[in-house]
């Protein structure tokens, strides 16, 4: 029964290769896209922290300058 199913009427190579190719391409696209999304999200987070931190320091410097001027 199972053996008949796996043999696919003698066309096992063609049928199962087709399903395997589809599975590999579909899974590969999903994994690559999710990895890229994750990498970019963490890159954006790091960048925002750096830029934000610098801006904060810059603003703090300005406040101090103004205090000195006054």
């Amino acid at each position, binding site marked *: 029964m199972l053996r008949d*199913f796996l043999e*696919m*009427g*003698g*066309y096992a190579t*063609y*049928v199962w*290769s*087709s*399903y395997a*190719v*589809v599975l590999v*391409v*579909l899974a*590969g*696209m*999903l994994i690559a*896209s*999710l990895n*890229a*999304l994750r990498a*970019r*999200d963490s*890159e*954006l987070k790091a*960048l*925002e922290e750096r*830029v934000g931190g*610098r801006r904060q320091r810059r603003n703090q410097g300005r406040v101090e300058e103004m205090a000195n001027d006054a």
Partner: protein
Amino acid sequence: MNWFHWFANPARFMRLAARLQPWIMVLGLATGAAGLYYGLFDSPPDYQQGETVRIMYVHVPSAWMAMFVYTMMAVAAASFLIWKHPLADVAAQAAAPIGAGFTLMALVTGSLWGQPMWGTWWVWDARLTSVLILFFLYLGYIALVNAFDDPERGSKAGAILLLVGAVNIPIIKFSVDWWNTLHQPASVARMDGPAIDPSMLLPLMLMAAAFKLYFLYLLIVRMRGELTARRIRLLRLSDAA
């Protein structure tokens, strides 16, 4: 046209997309599981093609998606060029590798079906050649949009390529009617209704639905990635200035 402008706000669109994502996944897995069950276990072998007919349940949905994704990208390219729709270009660029993947799947599974049924892996007839051209259009578009230092110029050049290449889509669709070919003619999207037994139409439609939902899911993931990449680019520019 209101919904069109409503979607022009990327943040709003992505919020909606993120809410839809789990539903798309559940529906896609359900239709995919049902499609595989009917396609592999609960449908008869073809009276001429035997068990190789089961290749149809992955080959035909792949080929439909290859054409659907390109058509969607061409529509996006037009909205980008005419209305400067900000998400259209993001969608086209996010969809391109998925379309290339579906086209590759259609070509390879078609070859694996052609060898036992036609006695050859490949023929240079109109259907196979026009689908191969579609594959190169996808690759050419991906290469072109990334070939410019100014991403805006890359997007425009890519959009024009997409519109010019759209002529290939009706050629693929009607190639089996216009020219002699080994490929069988349309048996589902016909003027006089599907010429395929319901027991085979059911798994085919289920797999087609699953492939479309899979595409939607992947498109949302890739659009989110593309939008993040653009924010990174903007932040870098403003940081350097």
